[in-house]
C-alpha cells in the first residue's frame, strides 16, 4: 500500500508543481486530438448530414457501415496506417511515420465514423418542421441545410465531443504510428504505458489523473449538450 500512496503523493506533487515534462505531454495530447477532431468534424458533419437527408441505394448499409466503424479497434487502424506510411508502403516517401501528423491522421480515422454516425442520428431525430419552416420562409437548399444544422447544434456538439473523447483516450494508433518519441510524439496514453513499464509509477499516475479529469470533463460536456438538444 505504501508503494501506491507514495506514487499518488508524488503524482499530486508533479501536477501541482506544473512539472514541465508532464505538461508538455498533456499539451501535445490535447493538440493532436483537437486537430484530429477538427478535421473529423469538417468531414464528418457534412457527410452525416448528406447521408441522413438524401435517399440513395444501400443507404441503410452505409449507415450500418459507419455504426460498425464505431468499434474499430485502434490497434488495427494503427497497423493499417503503419503499413501505408512505413518506408516500403505507398506513402513511405512522405516520411510521415513516427510524426505527430501520422498520429493526427490515425485519430482522424477513429473520430470521423463517430461524428458521422452521431450526426446521422442527430439529423434524423430533428423535427421535420424545421426544414419545412425554413423552406416556407423562402430559404434555398443551402440556407435550409444550414438552418437544420444550426437547429441541431447541441446534438452536433455532443457528436464532436464524443469524437474527441474517443481519440484523447486511445493508445493503439498513437503508439504504432507515433512511435512514442519523447518530446515529439509522446502523448498522455503512450507515456502512461511506457512509464508504467519502466517502473516510473508516479509520473504515469500523474498523467493518469489528468487524463481522467479530461475524460470527466468530456463526459459532463457531452451530457450537457445531449440534454440541451431535447
Amino acid at each position: 500500500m505504501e508503494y501506491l500512496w507514495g506514487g499518488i503523493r508524488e503524482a499530486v506533487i508533479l501536477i501541482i508543481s506544473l512539472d514541465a515534462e508532464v505538461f508538455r505531454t498533456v499539451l501535445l495530447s490535447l493538440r493532436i486530438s483537437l486537430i484530429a477532431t477538427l478535421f473529423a468534424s469538417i468531414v464528418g458533419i457534412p457527410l452525416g448530414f448528406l447521408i441522413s437527408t438524401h435517399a440513395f441505394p444501400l443507404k441503410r448499409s452505409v449507415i450500418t457501415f459507419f455504426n460498425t466503424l464505431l468499434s474499430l479497434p485502434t490497434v488495427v487502424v494503427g497497423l493499417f496506417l503503419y503499413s501505408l506510411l512505413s518506408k516500403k508502403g505507398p506513402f513511405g516517401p512522405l516520411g510521415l511515420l513516427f510524426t505527430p501528423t501520422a498520429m493526427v491522421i490515425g485519430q482522424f480515422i477513429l473520430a470521423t465514423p463517430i461524428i458521422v454516425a452521431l450526426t446521422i442520428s442527430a439529423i434524423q431525430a430533428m423535427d421535420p418542421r424545421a426544414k419545412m419552416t425554413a423552406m416556407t420562409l423562402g430559404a434555398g437548399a443551402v440556407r435550409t441545410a444550414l438552418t437544420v444544422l444550426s437547429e441541431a447544434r447541441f446534438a452536433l456538439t455532443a457528436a464532436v465531443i464524443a469524437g474527441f473523447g474517443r481519440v484523447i483516450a486511445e493508445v493503439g494508433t498513437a503508439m504504432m504510428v507515433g512511435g512514442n518519441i519523447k518530446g515529439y510524439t509522446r502523448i498522455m496514453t503512450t507515456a502512461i504505458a511506457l512509464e508504467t513499464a519502466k517502473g516510473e509509477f508516479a509520473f504515469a499516475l500523474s498523467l493518469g489523473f489528468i487524463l481522467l479529469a479530461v475524460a470527466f470533463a468530456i463526459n459532463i460536456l457531452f451530457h450537457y449538450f445531449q440534454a440541451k438538444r431535447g
Partner: protein
Amino acid sequence: MDPLFALRDITKSYDDSTVLDIPHLIIQQGGIYGIMGPNGAGKSTLLSILAFLLPPTSGTIYWEGVDVDTRDKHQLRKKVTLIIQNPYLFHTTVEKNVVYGLKVRGITKAKRAAKAQACLTMVGLSGFEKRMAYELSGGETQRVAIARALALDPQVLLLDEPTANVDRHGVEQLEGILRKLNEELQITVIVATHDINQAYRLTNEVIYLFDGKIARSPMENLFKGHIVKKDKDLFLFDTGRIQIALIPERDHVSHIAIPPQDIIVSIEPIATSARNSFVGKISQVTDEGEAVSLLVDIGERLKVRITKRSLQEMRLTLGSPVYVTFKSSSVEAF
C-alpha cells in the same frame, strides 16, 4: 380581374390512393376563406398545394390568371406563406425568428429590426423581441409565426388549424389579428379549421372538404351506408338503422350528410311534400348562443338546429317525443 387562385381538375395521389380531387375552385383576392372538414379530409394537402410546396399529381393551378407551371415556384412561394399546424419556431429569440425570411432575402440589419418591431406590434407582441422562442405559450407561438410570415409582406396567408393549441382567450386574439391583417393590409387569409363556429365567425366563404372532395355543406349528420332502392327520381339510402330518401345525383353513394338547419322539428306529424319524416326522442340539448342544437334519437342520432324561441314555444325538453322532417333534396350524397 383574374382570381388569385383558380384550380382546375386538381388531384393529389400517393401510390394508389387519391387524397385530393378538386375539379374547380376559385379563391378571390382579399377574402377570408375557411377550409373545413374532418381529420384526413385533405385540408393540409390543399394548403400545401396552394402554398406551392406540394405539386399536384394532375390538373392546373392559375395564379392571377397565369398557369403556375410556367412560372418560377420560388418566386411564387414568396407571395404565399403557409403557417403549419403547431408552427415551429427556431431555437433562438423571437426577433431572430421574425427576421429569418428577411435575412434569407438579404435585407439589411437595420431594416430587419424595424420590420420585426412593426410585425410584432401588429400581432400584439411588442416587447417580446429578446424572449427565447421556447418560453412562449401556444397562442404566443402562433402569433410569432404570424409575425414571421407578415415580415415577408405576403399576398396570401395560409393557416393550418391555427387555434388547435390555443386557449379560449388566445383564440379570440388570433381571430382579431387575422381580421385586422385582412382589413388593414388586404392580405387574403385562408384558414383550415375543424371548428365550424370559427369558420362562420371568421370567414366570408367556407370550403367544405370531405374525403378529398369539395362538399356542398359542412358534414353534419354524417352517415355511412349504401343505396338499397333505386327509382328514377328517388334513391333510398340505408344506414343500417334507418332508411333515408334522397335525390339521385350520382350512382355510387357511400355517405350522406343532412344539414341540421334543413330539418324541421314539430310535436305533431306535419303534412308536407318532404319525403323524410321520423319520430324520435330528444336525447341532448346544447346551447349554441342564439340557436339551440338538439340531438333527436330516431334510430340514428340526428342533430337539429332550432331557435331558442322555438324551443320555448314547443316546450321541448330532454325525452320529449318529436317529429323530424326534411326534404330528400336536403340530403347530400357522396
